[in-house]
C-alpha cells in the first residue's frame, strides 16, 4: 500500500509542477475557476432580484444547494482530478434541479409537455440530484417539493457507490475496446 501511495503522490506532484511551469497561465486558470463559481452565483442573485422564490426555494436555500454542489465538485476535482468538465456539467444540472419543482405546479402551457420526462432524466438517469439537491433537503429538513419518496434525501452515499461502480464498468469496457494508434 505504501508503495502505491508513493506512486500517486509523485503523480500529483508531477501534475502540480507541470501546471506551475507556466505561472501566468496557472494564475489565469485559477482566476477562471474562481470566476466560474462567482458567475453562477451572480446569475442566481440577478434572477432573485426579480423574484422572491424559485420552485418553493428561497434565495438562501438555493445558495445552499449551489454551494453544496460547488464544494462536492471542488473536492472531487482535488482528489481524483481532471474531471472538471463533468463536474461543471453536473453542477449546472444540480443547480437546475433545485428549480424544477416549479414545473410540477401544473403550469399552464407548453412547459408541462416536457416537465415529466425532463424531471425523471435529471433525477435518475443522470444522478445530479443526489450531488446537492437531496443533501440540501436533508440539511434543511424540507419535504421534497417534487413529492418523491422521503427516503431519497438520505440516499446520496448509496448512489455515489452505484455511480462509482458504473463508472468502473465503463472504464473497463473502454480499456477492452481500446486500440492504440501506435504513434
Amino acid at each position: 500500500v505504501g508503495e502505491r501511495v508513493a506512486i500517486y503522490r509523485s503523480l500529483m506532484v508531477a501534475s502540480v509542477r507541470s501546471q506551475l511551469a507556466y505561472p501566468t497561465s496557472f494564475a489565469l486558470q485559477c482566476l477562471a475557476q474562481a470566476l466560474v463559481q462567482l458567475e453562477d452565483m451572480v446569475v442566481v442573485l440577478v434572477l432573485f432580484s426579480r423574484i422572491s422564490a424559485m420552485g418553493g426555494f428561497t434565495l438562501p436555500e438555493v445558495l445552499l444547494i449551489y454551494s453544496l454542489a460547488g464544494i462536492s465538485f471542488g473536492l472531487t476535482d482535488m482528489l481524483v482530478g481532471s474531471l472538471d468538465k463533468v463536474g461543471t456539467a453536473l453542477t449546472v444540472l444540480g443547480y437546475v434541479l433545485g428549480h424544477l419543482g416549479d414545473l410540477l405546479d401544473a403550469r399552464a402551457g407548453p412547459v408541462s409537455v416536457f416537465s415529466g420526462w425532463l424531471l425523471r432524466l435529471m433525477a435518475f438517469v443522470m444522478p445530479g440530484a443526489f450531488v446537492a439537491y437531496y443533501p440540501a433537503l436533508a440539511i434543511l429538513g424540507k419535504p421534497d417539493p417534487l413529492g418523491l419518496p422521503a427516503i431519497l434525501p438520505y440516499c446520496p452515499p448509496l448512489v455515489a457507490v452505484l455511480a462509482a461502480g458504473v463508472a468502473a464498468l465503463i472504464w473497463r469496457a473502454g480499456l477492452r475496446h481500446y486500440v492504440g494508434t501506435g504513434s
Partner: protein
Amino acid sequence: VLACYLRLIRAGFRRYATYRQAVIAGLATNVVFGFMRCAVLLTVFAGSASVAGYDTSRTVSFVWIGQGLIAVVLIWGNADFGQRVCSGDIGIDLLPPIDLQAALLAEDLGRAGFALVSRFSVPLLIGSMFFDLTLPASALRWAAFGLSVLLAVLVSFAIRFLLNLVAFWLLDWRGLLSVHAVVAGVLAGLAIPIAFFPGWAQAVIWATPFPTMLQAPIDVAIGRGPAGPLLAIQLAWAVLLLATGRLVLARAVRTLVIQGG
C-alpha cells in the same frame, strides 16, 4: 485572389461538415440545455406577465436562438490558431501570398455557415415545436437578423483572433482562453437576458463587445427595439477589433522566431 478566399470559405464549411458525431453530440447538449434554461427562466414569470420587457414567448425565444447561436459564434472561443503558433506550423501559414487574417476569417465564415445549417437550425426547430417562439415577423427583420448574425461572427472571430495572437508572447496562453470562456458567456447574454441585470450592470456590459455576439442578434430577432442601432454597434466593434487584430498580428510576426528542424 477572391476565388482563393471563396475556396477557403468552402474548405471551412466542408472541414466542419466532416465531424458528424461531434455535430450530433453538440446538438444534443444544446437542446437539453435549452429545455433546462427555459425551465429555470420561466420560474421568473411565476406571478408577472413580463419581466424587463420580456414576456414568456420572448424569453423562450431568447433561450432557443441563444442555444442555436452558441456554435455559430463559438462563444467559448477556440484555440486552433494559437496551437499552430505554439507548434510552429504558423510559419507555413505565413508563407503563401495571401493575407493571414483574411484567410483565417474566410475559413471561419465557412465554419459558421455550416454551424448555421446544422447547429442553429435544429435547436430552433425543436424549440418551436415545444414553445411559442417570437421570431422575426417580416422578411426585412429576417434580413436584419441574418446581417446581425454575420456581424456577430465577425466580432467573435476578431476576439478569438486576438486571444490566439497572445500565443506569440505567452508559451502557454490557455489560461487566458479559460478566463475568456468563463466571462464571455455571461457578458454575451447566454445565461440570462442582459436586460435582467440592474441598470448600472447593463451599462457596463454593453460597453464591452461581448453582447454584440449573442444578445444583439437575439434582440434583432425578437424585435426588442429597432434593429439599426444594434447593427451599428456590432459593425463598430467588428471594424475596431478586426483592425486591432491586424496591428497586433504585424507586431507578433516581428517577434516570431522559427527554428528549422
